[in-house]
């Protein structure tokens, strides 16, 4: 290997690492706030990438029907509960968020011929379809299980992953897609050719991470999420509902997932099940951070990205084996440094 190849691999690693970092942050966030280990994160990546790709092929993505269907289901359940509890005041919000909003998005997609719109508009429409699925999934699947153990929530997460992946295959078929790059620019940095998409991906990740940092540090809602993560009972006593916090964190995670998919789809061909693997690598990073520390998760993600790109050069058949085996020394280290684990409730 010469320096040039090393730099190229390094560049690849950092681009992937930036995506893993975003996903790892979302995973840490969701786990801290809801105790859900969010395996289906990867499906949001795939849905984001493939919905955009479908627009660019001039077709209508089937994800709009999913949005509409899930919205109707949520509205139905919430309406029944509201009527039974005599809380008719809630109906307006229920209808607005679960029926009107999806209907408007679906209407726009059907009317506008998104394939001919500028890229930014396509991205916005993609996000408008995929992101609301986050809080809706929370509502349907996790909210009734809010008091369940981490293990039950994890098993359910795997089930949600299977459902969404199965639907992904149904919607997008088995073939992969790529989207047009955001930037065709090429820079020369010494001997290294840097392409614009790389800069765009890394830049967007950095901006997003800073924005999240500001959100958690400066805004009341960000602080409310942190408070829920620190002390769920304490937060409820302040009137910060765990459900609200759960929906908010799922919205953020779905947004980050879909955006990651959009960012990565010009670089890699995305299949309906690609997201799962990408998400799992975000996981390895999040586990390195013990599902707790945001900066460590980001650092772990870059490490995973680099490890992956270099091992694909040396031993490409064992790329996945190497990346997922990385988790073993990490767990080993955590196991040896963790003290006698005991949960005095």
């Amino acid at each position, binding site marked *: 290997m010469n320096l040039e190849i090393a730099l190229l691999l390094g560049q690849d690693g950092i681009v992937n690492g930036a995506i893993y970092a975003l996903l790892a942050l979302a995973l840490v966030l969701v786990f801290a706030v809801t105790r859900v280990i969010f395996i289906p994160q990867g499906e949001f990546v795939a849905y984001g990438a493939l919905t955009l790709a479908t627009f660019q092929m001039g077709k209508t993505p089937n994800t709009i029907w999913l949005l509409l269907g899930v919205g109707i289901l949520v509205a139905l359940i919430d309406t029944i509960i509201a009527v039974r509890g005599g809380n008719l005041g809630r109906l307006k919000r229920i209808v607005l968020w679960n029926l009107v909003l999806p209907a408007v998005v679906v209407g726009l997609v059907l009317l506008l011929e998104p394939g001919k719109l500028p890229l930014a508009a396509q991205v916005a429409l993609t996000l408008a379809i995929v992101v609301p699925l986050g809080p809706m999934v929370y509502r349907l699947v996790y909210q009734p299980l809010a008091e369940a153990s981490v293990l039950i929530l994890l098993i359910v997460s795997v089930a*949600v992953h299977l459902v969404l992946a199965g639907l992904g295959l149904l919607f997008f078929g088995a073939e992969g897609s790529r989207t047009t790059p955001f930037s065709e620019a090429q820079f020369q940095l010494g001997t290294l050719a840097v392409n614009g998409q790389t800069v765009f991906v890394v830049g967007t990740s950095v901006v997003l991470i800073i924005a999240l940092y500001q959100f958690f540090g400066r805004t009341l809602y960000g602080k409310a999420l942190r408070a829920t993560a620190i002390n769920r009972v304490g937060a409820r006593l302040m009137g910060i509902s765990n459900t609200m916090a759960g929906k908010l964190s799922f919205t953020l995670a779905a947004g980050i997932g879909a955006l990651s998919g959009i960012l990565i789809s010009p670089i890699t061909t995305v299949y309906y099940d690609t997201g799962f693997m990408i998400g799992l690598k975000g996981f390895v990073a999040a586990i390195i951070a013990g599902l707790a520390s945001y900066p460590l998760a980001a650092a772990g993600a870059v490490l995973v990205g680099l490890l992956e790109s270099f091992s694909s050069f040396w031993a490409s058949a064992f790329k996945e084996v190497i990346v997922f085996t990385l988790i073993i020394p990490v767990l080993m280290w*955590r196991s040896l440094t963790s003290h006698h684990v*005991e949960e005095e409730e």
Partner: protein
Amino acid sequence: MKRHLPLLVFLVALAVSPVMLSEFYVTLLNYIGLYSIVALGLVLLTGVGGLTSFGQAAFVGLGAYATGYLTTAHAVSPWLALLIGLALTAVVALILGFMTLRLSGHYLPLGTIAWGISLYFLFGNLDFLGGHTGLTSIPVLELFGYRLDTGRRFYYIIWIALLGAILATQNLLNSREGRAIRALKGGGLMAEAMGVNTARTKTVIFIIAALFACVSGWLYAHLQRFVNPTPFGLHIGIEYLFMAVVGGAAHVWGALVGAGLITVLKQWLQDILPKIFGQSGNFEVIFFGLMLIIVLQRARDGIWPWLIRVLPSMETGERVVAEAEPLPRRQMPATGAVVLEVKNARKVFGGLVANNNMSLTVKAGEVMALIGPNGAGKSTMFNCISGVAPVTSGEIDFLGQRIETLESREIVRRGMGRTFQHVRLLPTMSVLENVAIGAHLRGSKGVLSASLHLERTEEARLLAEAKRQLERVGLGGHLFDEAGSLPLGQQRLMEIARALCTDPCLLLLDEPAAGLRYLEKQALAELLRKLRGEGMGILLVEHDMDFVMGLADRVVVMEFGEKISEGLPEEVQKDPVVLEAYLGGVE
């Protein structure tokens, strides 16, 4: 006889099935059997032990590839290959278990996802395992010269293996080790305090589950006579977990029900769904995923508990405790000898000093009461002494030996029994079984003899001891009640019986009288006096002053983590410092 009837009918149906059914259904039953063996391991691991694994398919793969490789490349006998496969699986499980089982709950399932993927890719990328095409022409299994070369012939070996595994698992669960396994789900603290090595117990069930999976893989390889990586991937591992959860993960028969249901459904859905969706693909996973979500939301215990309500006569436990030779007792120290001495103990949590400069002694044959306002650090002191949360500095001597660095299970072995301020019991287990956990260290028979039921004499002695202690605390009429159905006061008494089962010479009781009614309190005081008369040292934390002052020989008063007074009950009651601590209101 009547309660065995459904089982008998089931066994007869199983026995005649290969003769009666078509090839298709025999094959289906073969697969149900193979999957059930793996799911049974998950019942033990996940349903009973509370540890989740998504990676069992990888262990199935280890068993299948071990025999596939050894029998084709090295012409090893399949039976020897089985043994080698089991040994290999045990070693891999031991290593993986060592890494993840000490960590908090969710690391194990995440770890299993990671190595489930790793092993799958490894199977597919190692040249000597045939890469993604796999290994072919695996030899036919022969048993006493009888060639098992068709599905019909193979059927019996699968189902005998499964029924054997079910019987062994059921035997294991109804034993001393089985109670330790079932105690894992209640959090390790109580089990450790009763002398159970929870890390070892977790590793044991992890290995058993892996070995079951390995056997299933071995059978699979010789039934199919070829192997490739596909059936050992993560998604199949997830499917095994589904089977256990849907069937009823806490029951051995749940594994069979779940495996049967999912296998049949899958077969059916694979025919139906592509027609509905109009294209090919694994759409049954959508259905399974939704089904699992609904099962977990609505009926977390799975189908089996529902099924036994329909067949109500099937699972009724034994209702008598046989008389048995009493267990040997330890030598009690002479009355008046110091059994426990705490010197300058200090406990710091984060930056908070919970105990400082605490010293106290307990003698054999006396009741020492530790009192003080709420939050004074009494329970912390208890946890330091019993090894649950070791002291930061200072010395604790028990029977003349330093114990401040020992684990709680080592301390209970030396003769210190305890109860908890917040009752810790296994609510769905019977009172008798809960108390028998206390006698864990007084038996020695292991997992193997338990699964073969070779330890019945010892088991009878343990249960008889539990019964004896329950009668002593006045719960002799509640032996077979669910522990969770007792009122709080009786749950506390049950904890005392459990502590007595450890054969202690020092008893640590954390608020034993809280929640008891007047007469119950008197009975408890009577019991403690009797124990004191037998030479037992008793250290008591209690809020009920009448109870304490009428019973204690000496009293230590704590406030803000420190000792503020010590002496005879009447001395302490007159101490102005104590009066201030207790009664200092707002002037």
